[in-house]
């Protein structure tokens, strides 16, 4: 099992948060293992539909993290991201998803410790919530489960 | 029933060795037309040795009882003694922040503890009741002949996170009213230095050294008087000034007034009524009030 039953997806911008997560690693800051990071050029690239898709495919929590306001590598990418994601987080309940399962934060390249804390805090928030059960039926049911996916020992396999 | 008057907690010192503080405070308040209701059946807050029980039961229960009584009838309690103020704030902080302490205290008091009454020191209260502009109006530059230093000491500002009154490194809250008396209030470098606290009986040597330094700096700053809001500071600086001079082989003279005495003088209350004659080191009132009608 890779660190429990739940799976978390993180969409991180390359310049700040991904580098912050690197810094946490370089500083050997222990973190829970449920998080799977997807690297993007900018949080401005995060399409809200992508987040919803992740939930639909079976993510139990989604974290988006980018540069602090004013520090975006592309000047204003995180400004657009902020607007879109704020809207999205307010929509969560509409989709039948507990709002805590979605979070977005700003973490800079030098804030390794902050990244480690964020992952730990986020994981600890989701763990008690357990797996996400989408009323509309996500891809989690066994009949949807197809293809070789991630190796034979994948925890998803055993669910 | 909640009254618009202040609940007044004089504490032990103001009713024994520091009655001039009590009297002058009451006189000022009376002149301002404010009602004070002395807290009923108040007890000692344990200020002097209780620092060593800060984290302990007694440090909450003793002042807590006073808070509890005040809470029944008043929105705000004023404690002119800096030590009492400090202890009341501490008890309030503890009670507000910890459910368990609240429950245990209620058990001892045999009633649900009331702790939310606003706790004010004399500077806060007077600043609320008479603005510097109003005092300036009333005083008409009455004390323009003198230079006075604000002495805050320790208990009025520290610990800052609990008292939330003024900066512990650079307090300034006394200044506006002091300046409104017409007096010059130059920077007094030792305004936050400790006077030696309650060491008087047991280790006078430590105390006298500390107090001596404060008086010495007040003199070299060219002050005509220091002003304090703490009976313990006053005791150490005024009552013991002869002891200080004797121990250190000096002959310093520095009148030390209570904050209420100074404000009272500015308002035109007579020195006698403010019991200035109780001071060991007497200010030269003739010079102070020279030219004042």
């Amino acid at each position, binding site marked *: *099992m890779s660190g429990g039953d739940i799976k978390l*997806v993180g969409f991180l911008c390359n310049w700040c948060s991904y580098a912050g997560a*690197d810094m946490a690693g370089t500083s050997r800051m*222990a973190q829970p293992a449920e998080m799977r990071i997807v690297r993007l050029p900018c949080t*401005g690239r995060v*399409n*809200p539909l992508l987040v919803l898709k992740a939930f639909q495919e079976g993510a139990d929590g989604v974290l988006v993290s980018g540069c602090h306001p*004013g520090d975006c590598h592309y000047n204003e990418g995180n400004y657009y991201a902020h607007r879109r994601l704020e809207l999205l987080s307010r929509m969560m309940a509409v989709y039948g998803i507990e709002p805590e399962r979605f979070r977005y934060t700003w973490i800079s390249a030098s804030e390794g410790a902050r990244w480690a804390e964020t992952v730990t805090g986020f994981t600890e928030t989701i763990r008690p919530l357990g797996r996400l059960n989408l009323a509309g039926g996500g*891809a989690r049911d066994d009949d949807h489960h197809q293809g070789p996916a991630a190796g034979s020992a994948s925890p998803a396999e055993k669910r | 029933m909640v009254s618009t008057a202040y609940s007044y907690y004089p504490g032990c010192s103001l009713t024994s060795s520091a009655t001039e503080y009590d009297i002058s405070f009451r006189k000022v308040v009376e002149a301002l037309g404010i009602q004070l209701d002395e807290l009923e059946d108040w007890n000692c807050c344990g200020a002097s040795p209780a620092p060593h029980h800060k984290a302990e039961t007694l440090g909450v229960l003793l002042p807590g009882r006073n808070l509890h009584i005040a809470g029944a009838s008043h929105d705000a309690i004023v404690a002119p003694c800096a030590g009492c103020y400090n202890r009341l704030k501490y008890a309030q902080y503890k009670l507000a922040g910890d459910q368990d302490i609240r429950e245990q205290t209620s058990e001892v008091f045999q009633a649900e503890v009331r702790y939310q009454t606003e706790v004010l020191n004399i500077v806060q209260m007077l600043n609320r009741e008479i603005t510097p502009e109003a005092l300036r109006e009333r005083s008409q530059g009455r004390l323009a002949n003198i230079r006075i230093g604000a002495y805050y000491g320790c208990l009025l500002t520290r610990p800052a996170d609990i008292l939330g009154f003024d900066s512990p490194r650079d307090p300034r809250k006394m200044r506006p009213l002091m300046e409104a008396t017409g007096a010059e209030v130059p920077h007094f470098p030792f305004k936050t230095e400790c006077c030696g606290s309650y060491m008087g009986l047991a280790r006078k040597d430590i105390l006298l050294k500390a107090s001596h330094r404060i008086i010495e700096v007040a003199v070299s700053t060219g002050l005509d008087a220091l002003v304090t809001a703490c009976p313990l500071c006053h005791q150490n600086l005024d009552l013991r000034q002869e002891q200080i001079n004797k121990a250190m082989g000096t002959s310093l003279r520095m009148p030390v007034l209570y904050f209420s005495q100074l404000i009272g003088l500015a308002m035109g209350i007579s020195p006698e009524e403010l019991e200035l004659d109780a001071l060991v080191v007497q200010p030269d009132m003739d010079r102070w009030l020279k030219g004042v009608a």
Partner: protein
Amino acid sequence: MRIGVFVCQCGTNIAATVSTERVASAAMALRDVVHAESIQYTCSDPGQRTVIAAAHKYALDRVVIAACSPRMHETTFQRTMAQAGINPFMMEMVNIREHCSWIHSDMEVATEKAIDLVSMGVAKVRGQTPLFSSHVPVVSEVLIIGGGVAGIQAALDIADAGMPVTLVERGPTIGGNMARLDKTFPTLDCSSCILTPRMVEVKHHENIRLMVNSEVEQVRGYIGNFEVDIRKKATCVDEEKCTGCQICEQKCPSEAPDEFNAGVGETKAISIAFPQAVPLVASLRKEYCRLYIKGKCGICKKVCPADAVDYEQEDELHTEKFGAIVVATGYELFDWRQAYPHYGGGLYPDVITSIQYERMLSASGPTGGHIQRPSDGAEPKEIVFLSCVGSRDESIGRPLCCKVGCMYIAKQAILTREHIPDSRTYVFYMDVRAGGKGYDEFYRRAQKEAGAVYLRGRVGKIYPRGGKLVVMGADTLVGENVEVEADLVVLATGIDAAAGAGSLAQRLNIPYDQYGFLSESHPKLRPVETTTGGIFLAGACQGPKDIPETVAQASAAAAKVIVLLSHDELETSPMIAEVNHMRCIGCFKCREVCPYHAIEEQGLRDGRRVAVVIESLCQGCGLCTVACPPSVISLRGYTDNQLIEEVTAVLR
């Protein structure tokens, strides 16, 4: 599709917590993976050769490398791909070190996670198509912001290499803080003797254009092609005409604070900062001038023999193109007064800062090199230095070390003994930081030759007594409190980034820290680069530095600029946006969000108006892809499909 997966052990960095063999064998089970193996050090020469050999042997067309962060070695392996005959963008790096082995301790857990991550990488690379870089022409002119010793050094190095340089300084003269110093540690050579000739050289260099009283307002564009708005502020003096005779200054009736001399002495509303200023031109400060305050005067205009004074002068706005930018905005001293009421908070005239002392020591300074107490002009005999005032002090939010304080205190103690032989100096310190070549020896000189009394402890209080200052400190080594009756107290105040450095950084789009110091891209490997291509750092704008370090870094930045601009063209990243013209509905929502104005409107032959991406301007942020209502823009390397595949790979 033939994918190869290489799982790096990084010695034991990865292998100690991730079973790389198991990851490799799990990878073999993934669709289209035809080869997977574990390699000890993939980035090493033999490691790379193993990858290349496997690529040939298994006819790979796509590669996944599970190793360290792509921020570390992506370009390394892109080069490997090129050598293996595979398009460099058909390679995906998977981070199983920083994001896995280094943050987990359980082998089982870490291995499972690594397998997940590899499956994500494989899913993503399957959707990848070959990409090709294009080239853009490069502007060969260089902008340098800040004319301290760092900016001067960089300007001269670059100009000597034959590239045109514009040096923008916001003050009236170049020279920066070094111009205010007397002598410099560790050799005690005279600051202006080294600096002034270089300043003059800047002025006369054929490749350098000097713009003083100027500031950078806006920066657009990207590496090789920046477009910058520079505002040259009106100073009421025509730079071309002014001869520097200073007659105006002598006749001007309005006093003004003397910033160059750090408040030691006053100057006039119209003045020249110091006799060796470059350019040697007067400037008028309206906020102090009678003509502007009271509407009456005009003396300077009347007395100027060169007719240089022009009250109607207006700000000029210049827009210029540059290929590279060097930021050299330096530092300022921390304003200690608010933070240290227990040192008098600025109320005691004889408590001064180190830079004020420096001005007193300087023979060309306002006191003519005489050390004087500001209160009464007397020569002090007992002089106390306090280190770390506004440094290494968490209570005021400044834990950083000023880095030069310890050394310049030693210097000032030595110089004090030279100026006043019968003086005594005291130094309160916590640690003496003297880590350079010849530095410790220099600091020991202050003790041995200049007789400075070093006291290990911080000062708790300073107060005046009988015309002296009582300094109450502790000597923590003997465990007792000590007291000095001082004539003069000199504070080694902390070092701050120059005012406005943070907002300049925002305009340049480069990162900075909480003190406003600008951040380098990597402290060891890319110490003069920023994360924005084409923008470089030099000197104390990056963090406290002494002169040798400043100059070394300035030359390093110059070298980087010269390398960059030695090519006529730059390769651009192909990871940019692309519009599917067939399906574009012409709403231009994309154009509204693009920060680089990289989208333009184009008419098609069928009359439709559609969006097109200007390749040389697009930086690949992906903002437009999300803004596009019918989702017809894709970002190469991060297409919607790729991202969805990546996500679903791990969740299935």
